[in-house]
């Protein structure tokens, strides 16, 4: 797979898309709430994966980790970009109510129900830190600010949460 991607084979990128697009889109669409923009970001993500594949090496870790970092960075870039901010400013008043609903709807999305069950097995403080860093693209420093907790505590909770996940999946 990695080899044929490196050779820029079309079939490899197609397989990659089929395997990982949903997982990547899950991350992107929690950072970029607007579905159309999230899809743009997913497209940019795959284009970037395709073009910068030579910079990935198996020694550095799993392919998915590399890809999800690309996707998360592109998504964060997008919501911080001028375009995105302007677009939000330019929305008409009538649509604002709907868009607010959409923005909050993340919590109620049916596909999130499974996650919620899963995350419920985590302690609430572990859950919120994983929500922020993994779903919302916060850095742990930002998360510490947001939650009003010392950095060390954030790191510990993040680690504990992930260990909880490991147990769950094993």
């Amino acid at each position, binding site marked *: 797979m990695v080899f044929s991607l490196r*050779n*820029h*084979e*079309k079939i490899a*990128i*197609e397989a990659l*898309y*089929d395997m990982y*697009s*949903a*997982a*990547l*889109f*899950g*991350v992107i*669409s*929690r950072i970029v709430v607007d*579905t159309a923009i*999230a*899809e743009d970001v*997913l*497209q940019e993500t*795959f*284009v970037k994966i*395709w*073009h910068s594949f030579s910079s990935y090496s198996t*020694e*550095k*870790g*799993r392919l*998915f*980790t590399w890809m*999800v*970092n690309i996707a*998360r*960075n592109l998504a964060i870039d997008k919501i911080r970009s001028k375009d995105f901010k302007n677009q939000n400013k330019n929305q008409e008043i009538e649509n604002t109510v709907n868009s607010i609903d959409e923005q909050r709807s993340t919590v109620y*999305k049916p*596909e*999130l129900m*499974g*996650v919620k069950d*899963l995350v419920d097995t985590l302690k609430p403080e572990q859950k919120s830190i994983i929500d922020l*860093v*993994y*779903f919302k693209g916060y*850095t*742990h420093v930002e998360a510490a600010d947001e939650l009003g907790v010392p950095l060390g505590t954030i*790191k*510990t909770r*993040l*680690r504990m949460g*992930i260990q909880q*996940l*490991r147990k769950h*999946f094993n």
Partner: protein
Amino acid sequence: MEDIRAYIETGILELYVLGDVTPDEKLQVEEMAKKHPAVKAELDEIERSLELYAQENAVEPSENLRSRVMGSILTNLGDDNNFPEKPQPVNHKLVELTARKENNFYKYAFAASLALLIASTIALVSVYSRLQQSTNQLEAIQLQNQHFSNRVNLMDRELGIFRDPSFKLLKLQGTAKTPASVVMLAFSPSKKKVMIDMGNVKLPENDKDHQYQLWALVGGKPVDLGVFDAKNDSTGMKEMKSIALADAFAVTLEPKGGSVNPTMDQMMVLGKF
């Protein structure tokens, strides 16, 4: 071993997997992973669990996005210069070919326009010179035409004289001085016209100081009817001064412009009715 345990416990590996580390920390983690299999194993575990977690959280993008993404990747293939092998040759070549074709089209179009311009200029110059030639010819022909029509008018008038019954033709014969001389004359008493047929004047050519003068004899007295020159190539009828009545006509050679009275010893021809 305790150090490694402690290193793992700091939570740096989780942040590394989440991409939330500084470049220095990143290098450090990668160094540690190389040196210590335990770190590498721990990293792998974290990555795996987060990957599974992401799979659990997967959200299917819309159906048509797949072809859109593939389309944009394949479109970008064309610009990818670092293509090692197995590119999409069709696509790649297609893009290049189209571009080149367009380039060539404008080149050819420019060359063609230039050639057309040169050809048109040459054609224009040649047509213009031929037009000029034709205009000159036409002018020459018109001039000739004018000349002929003048001649025809003249002939017509002369012919009119001969047809007119009121004209009488008189042949003035040479005197003893110049027996060979002849002057033909037409006289119409009713129209008071006297005309000399210049084509039938047979007189010695006069020099530039002298001219021939025509006289009418009325009751024995000479009356001046004007002067004329005798030249070999003279043609047409020359109208002289008018007179209603004459017994005879005579021509004398006089100083240029004529005399009041005829110089009798210079009488060249004489004719009587």
